[in-house]
């Protein structure tokens, strides 16, 4: 897990083009525009966890109290079941910090470009 200034620098260096390739890993369950097995990702940065209308979240996610920031996403994506025990995102995570930073950069870019955000 990255900490402090190192984390900030890593997130700032996130490459959305590289993040698009990382996002292909998510597309078994997620899309930007639609709720699927997982909730849609449009507007995820800044959103309160468990708050997408029409998506049935786990009680664990609804009670998590998380607001999705770059920092909280970075932590969650590293190990979802450990970060929110009981989440239905039963996925071991994105192990490389660079991949996580790229993925978050992609989600931010796509929210701005395709989601009216």
């Amino acid at each position, binding site marked *: 897990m990255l900490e402090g200034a190192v984390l900030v620098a890593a997130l700032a260096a996130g490459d959305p083009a590289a993040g698009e390739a990382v996002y292909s890993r998510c597309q*078994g*369950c997620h899309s930007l525009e*639609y709720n699927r097995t997982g909730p849609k990702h449009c507007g995820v940065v800044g959103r309160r966890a468990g708050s997408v209308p029409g998506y049935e979240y786990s009680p664990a996610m609804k009670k998590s109290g998380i607001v999705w920031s770059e920092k909280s996403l970075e932590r969650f994506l590293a190990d979802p079941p450990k970060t929110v025990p009981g989440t*239905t*995102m*039963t*996925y071991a995570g994105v192990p490389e910090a660079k991949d996580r930073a790229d993925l978050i950069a992609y989600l931010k870019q796509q929210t701005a470009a395709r989601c009216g955000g």
Partner: protein
Amino acid sequence: MSFFSYASPIAARRAFLGKSGLVLSGSAIALLAGRDVLAAKAGGSKASDTNILNTALAAELEAVAAYQVGAESGLLEKPVLTLAAQFQGHHKEHADVLAKTIQQLGGKPVAAKTKYDFPTSKLKSQADVLRFAASLEKGAVSAYLGAVPLFANRDLSKAAASILGDEAMHWAVLRNALGENPVPSAFVS
């Protein structure tokens, strides 16, 4: 006998389920027999494993629905249409096994949604449908890859890896049908 040693999917499925239940480790068998304490002592994680299986089941049910959309789009021609029907059949088999396993572990399988949102307005050609299906299959491979290490019961990891292999083959065949390199790298992520 190994799950992998069966020649056909049906034989593999029978091996997975067994005559009266799953072919599982001692801890899982104890769980199935109602000996929860013994299963707990063996480090079993019933809630976690059923949670993982239910997420996989939800994705498989969505895949079945997605292939139905593709088949009914009128955009697929034989032999691609035949292939899509075959792949849909595999996903149905996966969903069936996952649901039965969840039940046998004492969980409640998720049901198929009454309505799925798919980007149907973007599907204008056979290639669009194939590309859509390939993206789902690639994502499914990644999802199973992320789930395999999480199971407390290693027999379930093995079974999930078997499904992963099937979905990787779907992905490769779909890429090939699109004229793309069917196996673009030595590793999947």
